[in-house]
């Protein structure tokens, strides 16, 4: 999604729209501000309402900290796996012909289309305690998928899969194949060529996609609520924690954790957008 960076220098050469220009601008910006900036501001104000002390007290509660930490580390693990597998998938889709390619390509966007709740249900049905798969994993390897971090990571992987792929694919598609062939004629093996010729070029896209999937995963709720079992201190993510606090009426706790979660997401997102802006205007 974030590869739609601003086009460089699209000059406003429209002398014909004196009213229209400002009317458009104002309505567009108002829409954005109302819908987005205000909520962000509100949450921050609410979170800090009781003062900084209260704020710290609220989000350093064990359950809150644990939830935040769970969200962050599962999202991070997911992002790393996703960058690798997403890039690999994009590479394979661009470079090779193989049976099942059309099917794979058309399924990539599935996570975008499916409601997150349904995702959670799918995973429960597939790996739930009653199935053979999970029984096997539990007995033989002591790994529990559902109601435990692995299940969370799995759900996040599902959701984030298209993000890295869609980010990397266009860059790979535009890359001149001849550069790779030139490397072959100079004696470079497939892996070396990938490392020295392809990777440097797609790395920014990989990173952008990965960070986007990270930020997206931090806030994920629908699938996690089903898959994680919601056990405080063990498998409760920040979003689920916030939900619980709102239901219970603990506004303070809900606000402070919201602020922290939001802060992390914002830093990641705006950071990437800022870096990207510099790249396109360079």
């Amino acid at each position, binding site marked *: 999604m974030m590869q*739609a960076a*601003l*086009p460089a220098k699209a*000059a*406003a050469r*429209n002398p*014909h729209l004196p009213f*229209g*220009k400002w009317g*458009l*601008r104002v*309505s*567009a910006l108002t*829409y*954005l501000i109302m*819908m987005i*900036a205000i909520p962000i501001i509100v*949450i921050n104000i609410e979170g800090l309402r009781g003062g900084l002390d209260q704020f710290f007290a609220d989000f350093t509660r064990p359950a809150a900290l644990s939830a935040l930490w769970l969200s962050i580390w599962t999202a991070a693990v997911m992002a790393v796996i996703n960058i690798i*597998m997403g890039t*690999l998938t994009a590479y*394979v*889709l*661009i*470079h*090779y*012909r*193989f049976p099942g390619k059309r099917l*794979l*390509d058309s*399924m990539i966007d*599935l996570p*975008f*289309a*499916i*409601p997150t*709740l*349904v995702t959670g*249900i*799918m995973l429960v*049905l*597939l790996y739930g305690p009653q199935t053979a798969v999970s029984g096997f994993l539990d007995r033989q390897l002591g790994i529990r998928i559902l109601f435990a971090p692995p299940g969370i990571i799995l759900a996040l992987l*599902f959701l984030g*899969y298209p993000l890295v792929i869609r980010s990397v*694919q266009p860059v*790979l598609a535009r890359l001149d*194949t001849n550069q790779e062939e030139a490397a072959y004629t100079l004696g470079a093996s497939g892996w070396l060529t990938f490392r020295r010729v392809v990777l440097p070029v797609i790395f920014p896209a990989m990173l952008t996609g990965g960070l*986007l999937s990270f930020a997206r995963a*931090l806030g*994920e*709720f629908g699938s996690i*609520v089903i898959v994680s079992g919601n056990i405080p201190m063990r498998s409760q993510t920040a*979003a689920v924690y*916030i*939900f619980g606090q*709102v239901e219970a009426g603990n506004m303070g706790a809900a606000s402070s954790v919201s602020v922290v*979660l*939001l802060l992390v997401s*914002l830093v990641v997102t705006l950071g990437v*957008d800022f870096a990207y*802006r510099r790249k396109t205007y360079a």
Partner: protein
Amino acid sequence: MREKPVNTFWAWVLIGIVLLYAGLLLIAPIVAVIGGAFEKGIQPFIEAITAPDALLSLRLTFLLAISAAVINTVLGIIVSWVLVRHQFPGKWFFNALVDLPFVVSPVIVGYVMIVLFGRTGWFQNLPIQLAFSVPGMLIVTVFVSLPFVIREVMPVLASLRQEQEEAAYTLGASPWTTFSRIVFPAIRHGIIYGVILTLARALGEFGAVAVIGGAIEGATETATVYIYRALLDRNNIGAYSMAIVLGLIAVGILVIMNRLRPNERGH
């Protein structure tokens, strides 16, 4: 010819890894859901789906999704236009704002609404009740599905040379005519694709509408909230059946998306 028709050994290894991963991640779950819903046969599935509260929840879901799509399309086109064709300081910031709904947790969105419009909220006594009501749910649905039209239209608009519009002006076309006759047809595909994505997102929204709607059965219960409640009530068949319905709609959306997708994938 970009693709190498002859695959080496290592190529097959890579392809195999990808297919395995994608298969487990994407395909297996779908198979599981279909199995789960029809576990006890078609009849219970049909019954579950045609239960009155189920149908009501579906109706609400569609209502919200379509309304949000309309709003986000009209305003989305305007925002895209301003972000692409206008220059002003801080433009990059507004551009970044557009991405935020994508990463902000839906729970936080719902919560903000409560803070603003709830019983003890900042704006308590508005003429229209926004908390625990459909209008409130509409607002959050618009929020979460906001970026899609904009993100699909912006690149198309950017690649459309301004000269075409300028040519139209020199021929006497008004701004509106230029837009509807020259610009709109060109960005039409981007818009449609963006609308599809918007609908998909809106249909699938859960966290925000659950929080702000209050999940009041029969009044503010969307299809997703229905599923959640069904699970809590141990009505597995009900939950899975609705999941299938939403899943099927999602697959339908996926098929349409594939037809319309801009061909940037290097084929």
